[in-house]
């Protein structure tokens, strides 16, 4: 069992409240996933710069490791949030940063790369995880959160969602895939790289691979119905898009609400109950094997 919360804003007046709204939704879903939590949030972009979110295994060692990194690549523009750090740098310098990270003894890894997206994830009760990163105070256009109850693999931060396998792309998953090893092997042959043995990362990688080949998010998800086997409810974010897909027998729960101001996703209605205007929202259950996708025009 896991919990998923997603919020995609249509009304920019709500953007300063995005973090507070999503943090509340994730908190409600603690019951569905008390082991670990994570979220992707799409905030402001800065011209000519890309955001690389780093995660340090030990918060206490973060400053020392960062100093070592700066020794390799020069001073970095970074914002610390607990065990994570968002480094903003020109696109052309990402490879240099990756190479420098490779020279470090470990204890730090890249969680996400994107113009707008930042990903944070940690082990612990979801309410405490969102508080550590001060999600309440974050603003943005859309965000996707996940609360995990680990059933098959260990409770580790690397196993926490969201998974990101491409710039500004993230996926959260409730369920389990049965053919992920075969799909992973095929994707590796196609040049994709994977950081974990996790089935959800394969789903993320599959979509990244399809979109790299020219598919829209909607088309990529439609193809995944053919190629991915198992139980799943996926919620996927891109720089400007937000999408939902459930497996053909709708094994995992999902409920959505749409108003003129937002589209919201919750594993249970409880997660949506405190959203503004929910009383008059169109509340519906996404149909099995139907791709639901929304796109913003301004990103």
């Amino acid at each position, binding site marked *: 069992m896991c919990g998923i919360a997603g919020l995609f804003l249509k009304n920019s007046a709500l953007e300063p409240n995005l973090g507070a709204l999503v943090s509340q939704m994730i908190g409600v879903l603690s019951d569905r996933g008390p082991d670990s939590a994570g979220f992707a949030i799409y905030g402001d972009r800065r011209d000519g710069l890309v955001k690389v979110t780093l995660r340090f295994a030990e918060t206490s060692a973060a400053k020392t490791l960062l100093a070592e990194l700066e020794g390799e690549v020069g001073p970095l523009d970074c914002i610390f949030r607990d065990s994570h750090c968002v480094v903003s740098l020109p696109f052309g310098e990402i490879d240099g940063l990756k190479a420098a990270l490779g020279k470090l003894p470990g204890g730090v890894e890249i969680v996400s790369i994107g113009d707008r997206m930042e990903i944070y994830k940690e082990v612990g009760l979801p309410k405490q995880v969102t508080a550590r990163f001060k999600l309440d105070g974050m603003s943005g256009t859309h965000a996707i959160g996940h609360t995990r109850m680990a059933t098959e693999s260990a409770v580790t931060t690397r196993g926490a969602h969201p998974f990101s396998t491409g710039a500004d792309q993230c996926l959260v998953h409730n369920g389990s895939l049965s053919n992920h090893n075969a799909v992973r092997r095929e994707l590796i042959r196609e040049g994709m790289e994977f950081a974990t043995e996790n089935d959800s990362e394969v789903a993320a990688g599959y979509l990244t691979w399809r979109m790299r080949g020219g598919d829209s998010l909607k088309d990529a998800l439609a193809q995944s119905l053919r190629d991915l086997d198992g139980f799943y409810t996926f919620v996927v974010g891109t720089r400007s898009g937000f999408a939902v897909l459930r497996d053909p*027998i*709708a094994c995992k*729960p999902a*409920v959505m609400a749409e108003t003129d101001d937002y589209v919201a996703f919750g594993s*249970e*209605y*409880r*997660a*949506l*109950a*405190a959203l503004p205007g929910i009383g008059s929202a169109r*509340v*519906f*259950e996404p*149909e*099995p094997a139907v791709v639901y996708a929304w796109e913003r025009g301004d990103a």
Partner: protein
Amino acid sequence: MPDFDLADAPVRELNAMLHALPPDTNETRWSIRNPGGKHAIACGLDRAITVEIAGHVGYYCGGMNKHATILIDGNAGVGLGENMMSGEVRITGDASQAAGATGCGGLLVIGGNASARCGISMKGIDIVVMGSIGPMSAFMAQAGNLVVLGDAGEALGDSIYEARLFVRGSVASLGADCIEKTMSAEDEAALAGVLAKADLAHVPTKSFKLYGSARKLYHFHVDNADAY
């Protein structure tokens, strides 16, 4: 009329109060506010009381109901009125998966749509859905009536034992051993009775088609002896 606000007190407290009512209680009409999608609201009731809930409810609302009438103005999560023995559960909006699952008796009326597996393993309950039902509804149904004014999704009545499935609209596909049947006078009377109980007596029985068991799956057929 007792008024209970779930924004102020937990579901467990509400259910404990409802379970503690004596058989001759005068508190026969309850009003519940701010359900907020919480789970197991008004479960396991055993008194002829009426419980009105204003808003959306979570999982298993009205589950295991006996004697009580539960009226919900909103939508419901998984397992609405599951395993009911008697009484009524009525909802104005949509119900999620497995509405009326395993119900042995009573009446479940859904004003909107029901999603997948509506009436799964139903054992005597009457279910009326004014909208449409999702895939795999009435899976392994054993007894009772499922009445659908709209359409039915894929694999209706898969592996059905008995139970009557009345559908007015289209059926996406029938599950294993589920077939369309000719409606007998007895079937039609049963349908009319269920519609009347659901305050839908004006809906003509002739507008429905009846589906049920071909009875091939659960009877041993001697031609299959070699398979064992």
